[in-house]
């Protein structure tokens, strides 16, 4: 075990909800502060130290200027941990990858504002730097975070479940949502959250990523049975996992979108939905 290792938290494109969960964990598991020294954590403190050994990174990489900062963190840290779905998978940020980046920028910021902010297709941080471990979820599970920190301090390899959510859902003795006709991605999604969404009546959306032997074919059959169209099923599959599915190229278990992020049938050219937000006023 390291003698009170120094740890730091960093954020990239994200909602910072995973860091909030960390702050939460520090309150429920006060003993954590006896184990580690936090030297940088923008969301929780103003001090900034750069002599950390373990870096926890929240957020995906969505612009070129992020890359250098990521590489600097990698250079300093002995261990880099991806914190949450955005850093781990690309997460919801990667949904934008389905359209040309210029269209997305125009859609969000309007004609006049489309060049105001730098942006490119979202990627998990492991596409930019070497990542040692990931703590999945949107947001992360507090208990899992504590357990993984403990494991790192013991010099043991953190282990994530590679079985579906259904295991934990059955143990909770929940009625199966898919049996009740409500779409749930539990059968293909990595467990470890104690099936929190299905336990409260909401179908799983796959935020912890898919298991290594996810049965997409029969998952699709189940969702079709609920009356979902193939396009709707694609949307379910890609909500958190667009990046991974797109990376599968022609093998992606999607009916409409191919690996390049372009629709398989040119005739179906998709238009962006009408923006909910007014375009920024012309300067």
């Amino acid at each position, binding site marked *: 075990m390291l003698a009170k290792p120094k740890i730091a938290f960093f954020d990239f494109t994200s909602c910072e909800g995973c860091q909030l969960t960390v702050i939460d964990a520090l309150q429920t598991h006060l003993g*954590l502060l*006896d184990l580690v020294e936090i030297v940088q954590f923008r969301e929780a403190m103003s001090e900034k130290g750069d002599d950390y050994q373990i870096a926890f990174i929240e957020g995906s990489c969505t612009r070129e200027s992020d890359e250098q900062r990521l590489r600097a963190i990698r250079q300093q840290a002995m261990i880099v941990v991806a914190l949450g779905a955005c850093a781990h998978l690309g997460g919801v940020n990667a949904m934008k990858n389905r359209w040309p980046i210029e269209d997305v920028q125009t859609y969000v910021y309007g004609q006049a504002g489309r060049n105001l902010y730098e942006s490119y297709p979202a990627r998990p941080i492991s596409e930019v730097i070497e990542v040692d471990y990931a703590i999945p979820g949107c947001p992360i599970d507090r208990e899992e975070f504590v357990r993984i920190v403990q494991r790192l301090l013991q010099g043991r390899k953190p282990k994530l479940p590679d079985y579906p959510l259904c295991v934990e859902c059955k143990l909770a003795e929940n009625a199966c949502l898919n049996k009740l006709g409500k779409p749930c991605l539990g059968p293909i999604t990595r467990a470890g959250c104690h099936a929190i969404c299905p336990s409260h009546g909401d179908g799983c959306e796959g935020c912890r990523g898919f298991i290594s032997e996810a049965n997409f074919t029969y998952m699709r059959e189940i969702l079709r049975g609920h009356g979902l169209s193939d396009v709707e099923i694609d949307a379910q599959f890609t909500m958190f996992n667009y990046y991974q599915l797109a990376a599968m190229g022609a093998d992606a278990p999607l009916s409409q979108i191919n690996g390049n992020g372009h629709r398989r049938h040119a005739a179906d050219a998709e238009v962006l939905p009408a923006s909910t937000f007014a375009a920024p006023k012309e300067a």
Partner: protein
Amino acid sequence: MSLYILPKERLPGFVDNLRAGFRVVGPVRTETGYAFADIRSADELVLEYPTTILPPKKYLLPQRETLFTFRTGKAEDGAQQIEVEPVFQDVQPTVIFGVHTCDMHGIVLYDKVFSQGYKDEHYCARREQTYIIGIECLRPCDDASFCKDMGTLTAPPVYDLHMTAVDDNYLIDTGTEKGERLLLANVEAHLATTDDIRRLSQTLSAKWPHFRHRLKMTKDQIPSLMAINYGSHIWDTLGERCLACGSCTNVCPTCFCFDVQDEMALNMEEGERARMWDSCQLREFALVAGGHNFRASKASRVRHRMMRKGKYIQQVHGITGCTGCGRCQRACLVDITIPGTLNALYDEMQIDLSSATGA
């Protein structure tokens, strides 16, 4: 043992009296069905229930059970030392009320598995303090049940008390002396008369036509059917469909496999060793050092489960590994069922005379 008669109206009093000295668990209504849960007041107990997601095995083998705690430290001479303290979790006088006959057959197997050969101290400590009160099934749970095929429609000798609803009364058979004492100490019940026994017999006979057979073969034929079909292509078909979600094993009253893990406390000096339910349907179940996996394909895992239920457990313990409760069928999202599989294997084994002669 003796047969007693208890008017139904005295059941709540019986349950409340038991609650004074025992943890009483039994089937209760939930939002979407029924589940075994702690009975907080007698009116929560529902004895006429179709089925539950998890069988009452969860009280005999908790989903997660601490086996011992440990503390690491240094001895005076500086050597690393470890102190170990055994833990017996959930060991307390418990009454499991309202156990269906199929689930009692599951408990028969559990008792064999955990007490014969290598005796599991944790299981046995809990089991010794547990009373089983069965309830006779007079109607099938639903279409998924095939208890009649599996011969689990009558109660095995594992109960302390077994109740059968007859009109406005329960006829209660005492399976053990401690069960009889439990009954008589907690409620006023009388020995059944010849007339009561006659009505009980009528009730028991009348229930059989309500249960249907689902298997094309007899229970005794299943082990050889499984042996012959180890190499069947059906396993590949089922493996393709299987989601490898482990639901079938988690809800099974005869599945007992567990994993063992050590977990540290936050102070990093103490910790505990715990065991938790595991499933042969999960990819990592047969994964060993070096990355070798004895059952890497889902097909081999589906086959393994069916073999356990239909053959292996029979060979080792002398009783069938499936109780016909139907829970795995209810839990499966891709329609992999034991009757469906056995019948498909059986059909394949038959010589098709029509095609042989028609050629």
